[in-house]
C-alpha cells in the first residue's frame, strides 16, 4: 500500500473505464426500431421502420455498426416485414371470404 506523502501530490489519477462512444443516431435507430415493432398493426410501422434503417445506416462512421444501431436495424426490418405480411394477409383474407368484405373495405376508403 502506498504511504501518504505530505509534500507530494497524493491525488491518484484513475483512468476512465472504456465506455461505449456516444452515438445519437444509433440510439434514434433503436428507438425507431422498437416503435416499429410496437406499432406493427398500424401504418406508422413502415414509417418508423424506414427511419430506423436510415438512422442505422447513417450512424455508421467506423468499420462496424454500433450495437444499438444493429439492434435498431434488426427491429426495423422485422417491423417492416411483419407489418407488410400482416397487411397482405388482411387483404388476401378479405378477398377470399367472398362476401364483399374487400368491396366494403374499398367503399370505406372511398375507392369507388
Amino acid at each position, binding site marked *: 500500500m502506498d504511504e501518504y506523502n505530505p509534500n507530494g501530490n497524493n491525488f491518484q489519477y484513475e483512468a476512465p473505464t472504456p465506455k461505449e462512444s456516444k452515438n445519437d*443516431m444509433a440510439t434514434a435507430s433503436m428507438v425507431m426500431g422498437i416503435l416499429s415493432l410496437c406499432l406493427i398493426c398500424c401504418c406508422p410501422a413502415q*414509417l418508423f*421502420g*424506414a*427511419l430506423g*434503417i436510415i438512422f442505422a*445506416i*447513417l*450512424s455508421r*462512421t467506423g468499420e462496424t455498426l454500433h450495437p444499438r444501431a444493429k439492434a435498431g436495424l434488426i427491429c426495423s426490418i422485422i417491423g417492416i416485414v411483419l407489418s407488410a405480411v400482416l397487411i397482405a394477409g388482411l387483404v388476401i383474407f378479405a378477398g377470399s371470404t367472398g362476401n364483399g368484405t374487400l368491396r366494403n373495405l374499398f367503399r370505406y376508403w372511398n375507392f369507388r
Partner: protein
Amino acid sequence: MKRRSEYKKTARKALKGNYETAIVAMFVISAVSYGMSLVFRLAGMGNSLISQSQSTSLDLNQLFRKFPFLNNFPQIRRFLQFSLPSVGSIRWSNLSPDAILRGILISVIQFLTAWIVGTILNAGQKKLHMNIVTGEKASVGDVFWGFVHGFWRFLVYAVLLGLLHIALYAPSVFLAGLGILSGTPVLFLVAAPVYIAAAAALVVLVCAYSQTVNLMVKYPQCGAIRAMRTSRVMMRGHKWQFFVLDLSFIGMVLLELMSFLIGSFWIQPYIWCTKIAWFLDLERNSLPPVSSPLPNNAE
C-alpha cells in the same frame, strides 16, 4: 479515386454533429419557397385564372365533346370530377382577354422568381455542405451565400442547361406533335427512339457538366462558361463513376419514400455531402492544368 463507400463514410463523419445545421437549412429553403408562393397569393396574383372563373359551374361535357376519344376512358372523367374540380371549372370562353393575359404574365413572373431564387439557394446549399465536408464553419446563413457571390453565374449555367434540355428534347416533341396534328401514328413510333436517344445523351451531358456549380462555389471568381469547360475536362473518364454513385442512392431514396419523406431531412444532406466529397477527391486527382488555374484566371 477511392471506393464509393469511402466517400459515403467521409460524408457520414462530416455530418456527425452538423445534421442540425443541414436540417435547419432545408427548413429555411422550404420556408423561403413557401413564403414566395404565399406572397403571390396574398397579393391576389396567384391562381387568378381559376379564381376569376370560380363562379362558373363544372363543365366537363364540353371537354368530352371536344375530345370524343376520352369517352372510352370513364376513369379519366371520374378523376377529373373528383380530384380536379378547379381545372374542370375553368371556362376559358368566360374569361376576358385581359384576364387571360394577366394570368399568363403572373404565372411567368411566379415561375421565373421561383426558378431564380431556387437556383441561387441551390448554390448556397452546396456551399453549406462543402463547408461541412471540408470541416470549415458551416452556418444556416450559408444558404444565402449565392446571392452575394455572383448569382448571375449560377443563372447563366441554369439557362444553358435548360437550353440543352430543350434542344435535345425538341425533335421528339416536334415529331409527336406532328403525329397528333396530322393523325399519323408512324410519327409516334419515330418519336419514341428519338426521345430515348435524347434522354441518353442528356444523361451523359448532365454528368459531364455536373461539377460546374461545385467549381463555381469553390472558386467564387470563376465564371459559368469556364466552370462548365473545366467540369467537362474533369469528368473525362469519370462520368460512369458519377452515374453509378448517383444510382447507389436508390435504396436510400426508397427508404425516404417509405418514411413519407421525413427521412429526406437526413438523407438529402448525406447525398449532398457524399457528392461533394467525391468532387473534392476528383479535383485533387485531376491533372494540374484542370483545376489550378481556376482561381487566378477567373472570368
